[in-house]
């Protein structure tokens, strides 16, 4: 494993020079040769002492570079494809590493056999990546380490935390994990959907009562597919604004504009 300093990024527009180092490239995994793409950004405070923080987007199948450029990384891409600095980057006081996981996502390669797309395999490969990462960047041996992410990382992260606790071979000192809007339990998270719509005045009391009456505990199966959904429940959901008004609402940000 080698560290790869990012060459000068094109179209950079900023009033101040970049005051941090960053590195990107592929790290090969010994077990099966997967080439995992990562982008590592050094802390703008004290890179030799600050903790290392891994960020994982969810999906499953979404790239952590999305989180890099639209949430917590040091750069933001503008309409003319220039980049500006993000003054709220989490690299302000921590060293960040964004991992595109599992293989097949973003620049990580190759696309795997379908049977390998599961959470045990994904967390094992992420763990293996961390072992190789600390070989490429040995300054992080014994460094405090945090795992962060969002959405389906609500599954990835507890798996990876368990793996690191059971097999402390990465050389990292796991201190904590932070997960935003974490998908955690299909039944509990799925059944909360209709309560959220009702309590935020997005569906009527009549629609809410109709769904509750006809869906019981099967709601999550009716929202995301019809595989485990009875006909009455399916009809109640489809007839409600939950599904009929989706072109006019961004359910991921109910007060936000819909990007057309």
């Amino acid at each position: 494993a080698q560290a790869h300093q990012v060459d000068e990024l094109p179209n950079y527009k900023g009033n101040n020079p970049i005051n941090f180092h960053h590195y990107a490239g592929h790290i090969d995994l010994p077990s099966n040769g997967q080439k995992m793409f990562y982008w590592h950004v050094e802390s703008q405070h004290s890179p030799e002492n600050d903790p290392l923080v891994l960020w994982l987007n969810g999906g499953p199948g979404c790239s952590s570079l999305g989180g890099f450029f639209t949430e917590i990384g040091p750069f933001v891409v503008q309409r003319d494809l220039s980049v500006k600095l993000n003054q709220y980057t989490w690299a302000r006081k921590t060293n960040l590493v964004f991992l595109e996981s599992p293989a097949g996502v973003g620049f990580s390669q190759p696309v795997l056999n379908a049977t390998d797309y599961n959470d045990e395999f994904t967390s094992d490969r992420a763990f293996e990546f961390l072992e190789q990462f600390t070989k490429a960047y040995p300054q992080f041996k014994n460094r405090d380490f945090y795992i962060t992410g969002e959405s389906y990382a609500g599954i990835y992260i507890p798996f990876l935390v368990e793996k690191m606790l059971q097999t402390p071979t990465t050389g990292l000192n796991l201190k904590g994990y932070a997960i935003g809007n974490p998908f955690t339990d299909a039944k509990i998270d799925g059944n909360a959907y209709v309560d959220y719509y009702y309590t935020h005045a997005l569906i009527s009391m009549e629609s809410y009562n109709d769904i509750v009456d006809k869906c019981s505990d099967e709601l999550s199966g009716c929202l995301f597919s019809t595989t485990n959904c009875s006909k009455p429940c399916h009809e109640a959901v489809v007839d409600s604004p939950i599904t009929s008004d989706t072109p006019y609402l961004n359910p991921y940000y109910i007060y936000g504009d819909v990007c057309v």
Partner: protein
Amino acid sequence: CTDRFTQDYLNLPQVKSAIHVEGKLTWTDCNSMIAERYNRTSSALPKYKGNLQTNVSALIYSGDADAVVNFIGTERWIGSTEGLGLKVKSKWSPWYGPDKQLAGYSQTYAGLTFKTVKGAGHMVPAIRPLHALYMFECFVYGQDACDSF
């Protein structure tokens, strides 16, 4: 629309060269083929039961304007008996950002802190960047760092 600009940017040949991507790989934000193939775990709760028995700290946060994986469900799997049933150590109370504005609400449990981020969607730092950064640094560095943010 920064996600669209990001996709165009990362597929510029000079950007791919700068970050050492070789060949004709095309970057997309999400790979729908993987999402369809993926054999999803229905619940991570069994993992929490072991993970919470250690000294590793946990922060769960929810942008309260996200309907998809919303804070109502999150609070249920943390505190209700159908979920982890964790005991409350510090009751639901507001928390404030460094701008002195209400940033959300917080409740602490044994081994885990749950915070909402007021007005944020699914991707919290995208909508509330200052409050998200403050929350993150307070989690990593503790109250002293919070106070001197």
